């Protein structure tokens, strides 16, 4: 049972790596600026998914629970049971910061591409010689 879970989780991680490779190919090889922008957002999403997968854990029985206490603990045993069943909360806090910063940079990029088109007349990097 546990080896099947390890196989499935490793396959999910390999799918993230394949997504990184495909989106990097899209950033380098396609000539349109809008296509490069779309591929860049897919790239940053896949890298964030790596960090969240690292925070997963395995419990001896059943499935792990979220990192939120359902009610204030009444004794020390409640606290110990919560610690032995919850997933790792530190990568989730880091990914939250990364998503918001990515949104800010992407909004600025869209404004830049709009002004680039108005000035040069085309969004293809093969037709414009700067």
């Amino acid at each position: 049972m546990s080896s099947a879970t390890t196989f499935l989780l490793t396959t999910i991680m390999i799918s993230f790596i394949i997504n990184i490779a495909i989106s990097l190919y899209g950033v380098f090889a396609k000539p349109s600026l809008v296509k490069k922008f779309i591929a860049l957002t897919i790239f940053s999403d896949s890298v964030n998914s790596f960090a969240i997968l690292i925070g997963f854990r395995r419990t001896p029985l059943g499935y792990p629970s979220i990192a939120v206490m359902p009610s204030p603990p009444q004794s020390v045993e409640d606290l110990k049971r919560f610690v032995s069943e919850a997933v790792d909360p530190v990568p989730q806090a880091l990914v939250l910061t990364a998503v918001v910063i990515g949104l800010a940079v992407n909004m600025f990029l869209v404004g830049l591409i709009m002004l680039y088109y108005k000035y040069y007349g085309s969004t293809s990097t093969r037709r414009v010689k700067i």
Partner: protein
Amino acid sequence: MRLSDIAIGVSMAMLALLLSYLIVYGGLGPIATLNLRPLAVSFLNYTYNPWKIVYSAMSPEAVTAIVWDFRGLDTYFETSVLFIAIVGLIALFRGANVVQGVSSKGLSIIVKTSTKLVAPLILVAGASLAFHGHLSPGGGFQGGSFMTVAMTLLAIAFSIEFFQQKKLTLNRLLAIRCIGLLAIVVVSVYLLVKAVLLGGYAYIFQNMPRINSPYSMPSWFLDRPLAGILFFFNLSESIAVIGGLTLGVVLLLLREEELKAIIGGGEHE
């Protein structure tokens, strides 16, 4: 296909193969272990610990406590990075204003009526997420993003001239953003000012009493945990996010006539 495309494709495939080989044979660390890392065990132990208040954050939600209390300075600088991006966007489109005095256009009346029904519901759901961020999954960014989606629905179904008519100009949206930032600053140095005036020690971003200083924010409210500083941070962050992101989207929606005045046609090569 060009030769450069084939070369890029082959090198990306080799990168994927190499990383997969490393991961399958455990080179980048084990996946899904039984024991957590010691840092995670320490944070989970001290997120709500009424027997050791000196180390704890007194909030049942571990992720919000890490974002705003244990690693609060990271979040403060991330808010300022968002602010810098908005300022850059304003600087790119400087001099452009929404046209005054034009009656609002917008989409057809069916779209307007259904948006009038749906948008207040989304606003209320976003505000509720921002209010209970310390008890259940939610928080400042989550609530602010929901409310931004509702505001952009309103900006597209009615038009941006409608916002101008209701006195929600670009300067007012920027003022909402700055009020949110000011609220964050005031809440974070509140205990420090209190300690300077009354004597004793305190720290910046302090939530609960620490070893050297006995001051603390309120940790219970009538019969629910309030988690002190986290509640006020969530409120001010949601106000800041709704102001900043709506300003960004309205700037990108400006019409062609207003943009031509500031760019002045193309100089193609």
